[in-house]
């Protein structure tokens, strides 16, 4: 067990070091969410006047959703590091060493989670800068981060599984293009689900992005809806475990195919 933990830390360190060498990489993953935040924050300012809108400040309402969206955007590229390692032979070098296989998957996932957290903090700060206010306090923000990281880890695992099975960067582009935006629009990111047409509300109920955004919405409430948070966090946890299992299966399939 301690070897597995040490190996995990070593693998995570490898990614962190590569990131610290090119920290502007994170700017690339932030450009899109920041544009959405600033642009839509202005564009939909008056949406708060709609009957049934749950918040009086649109930028406050938008910020948690954008944090979740940016987690999806960056986690979707997670499999890229596997594609590169497979192409470069680094993966096989690891596989002929006694490194714990769980550490190869876990170490990368810990790094992805860390990146999601870092991005979330930056966007939160930016939101505060442009006037977002969170009456839910630290607890609300904590739940926002937990749900965002769970969703990010799930999506990263899915991206990893895809990378291991298809071994092509193109497949990850397809994943990001086809999933992130529709799932974001079908969540409470831009408008409360209660204002959506009926069929959209039905879809949103099973939309993992919406689970995370609704938990994130607690940052705006002075009293936390514990049952909503509990249900959604449990759903996100299950989703993450399923995706992690999928990535482990894909990893084994890759090992067999070598």
């Amino acid at each position, binding site marked *: 067990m301690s070897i597995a933990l040490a190996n995990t830390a070593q693998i995570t360190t*490898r990614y962190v070091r*590569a990131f610290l060498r090119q920290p502007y990489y994170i700017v690339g993953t932030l450009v899109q969410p920041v544009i959405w935040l600033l642009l839509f924050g202005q564009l939909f300012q008056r949406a708060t006047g709609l009957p049934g809108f749950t918040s009086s400040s649109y930028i406050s309402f938008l910020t948690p959703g954008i944090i979740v969206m940016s987690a999806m955007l960056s986690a979707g590229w997670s499999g890229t590091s596997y594609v590169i390692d497979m192409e*470069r032979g680094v993966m096989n*070098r690891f596989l002929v060493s006694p490194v714990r296989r769980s550490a190869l998957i876990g170490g990368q996932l810990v790094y992805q989670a860390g990146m999601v957290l870092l991005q979330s903090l930056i966007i939160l700060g930016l939101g505060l800068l442009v006037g977002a206010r969170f009456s839910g306090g630290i607890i609300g923000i904590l739940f926002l981060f937990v749900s965002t990281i769970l969703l990010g880890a799930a999506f990263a695992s899915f991206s990893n599984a895809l990378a291991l099975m298809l071994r092509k960067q193109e497949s990850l582009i397809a994943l990001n293009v086809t999933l992130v935006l529709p799932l974001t629009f079908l969540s409470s990111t831009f408008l409360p689900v209660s204002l959506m047409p009926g069929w959209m509300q039905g879809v949103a109920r099973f939309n993992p992005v919406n689970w995370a955004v609704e938990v994130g919405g607690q940052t705006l409430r002075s009293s936390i809806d514990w049952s909503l948070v509990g249900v959604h966090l449990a759903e996100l946890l299950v989703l993450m475990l399923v995706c992690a299992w999928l990535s482990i299966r894909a990893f084994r399939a890759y090992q*067999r195919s*070598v």
Partner: protein
Amino acid sequence: MDTHSSLSQLSPKPATAAISRPAVEANGLVKTYPGGVQALKGVNISVRQGSVFALLGPNGAGKSTIVKILTTLSRPTAGRATIMGWDVVQEPGRVRRMIGVVAQKSSVDLEATAAENLALQGQLYGLSGAGLRRRVDGLLERFDLLDARTRIARTLSGGMQRKLDVAMGLIHQPQVLFLDEPTTGLDPEARADMWREIARLSGEDGLTVVLTTHYLEEADHLAKHVAIIDHGQIVVEGTPDGLKAELRGDAIQVELADASPESDIRAALNGLDGMLREVTIDGRILRARVDSGASGLPAVLASLDAASVRALTATVARPSLDDVYLRYTGRAYSKAENKEAIR
């Protein structure tokens, strides 16, 4: 040094068995890939401890498949293989600690420095602290990579990346080092450099080296033992000299001063009929095979001189592995290479 205490640190296996046991042994290895492609059709290998063993064959012959199985990366469809007595399928963990692997393609992490590459590799094998630092420093120095210590691997030359690959394969002081086509893609200077390193490795610490190559001269130059593999089967094996000796005969080549009609030259050599074989005349180049170059060449030169055919240069060549390859596979090595490349 206290022999007794050092022995007690060895594996629980009896020390006497360690002397005679082959470093690598494979029996009846078969590998069939999905779709029915049979990459290996029953390969047997035995590599003595401390020797350099070369698997020689054209691309696609099955060399890399053998290495993948022996290094626990891939499972054989049938057959059994052991490294230092440990079964590669049953005891992959033990085997992985025994072996260093340098893959066909460089597997350096391009975004990390040479020192970081080495350090992570060491950590994955359980090294840490001052011991790891010493090992990293020692290998950087030994492979002439001190300048690369803090340089991102992406900025290193192909030859330097290759040396870093080998250094990484040695970080945990393995007993068996696998080198899968270590010089493919290197320029001649880097190749000569790598050859020196490999030759030096085999002389040290009783390290066993298993290398695959599709360069005949590489196997000839480095290996004490060569196995020629073709279409997933070992067609012949032995020492390079032994294999060539079986061909019986040296090649002689004479460059003539003037292009004479072929019939004249053949007429000049008439008296040597029983001695020369496979006489070919290609412009001003005369080639033939004789039992012994030392006595055959003077006789040829004397006959040419007697017929007033002037010779410019003359050489005697021992049979090459190319000739060996031709004899056992029925095709010239260069042709096999081209054919595989076209595939």
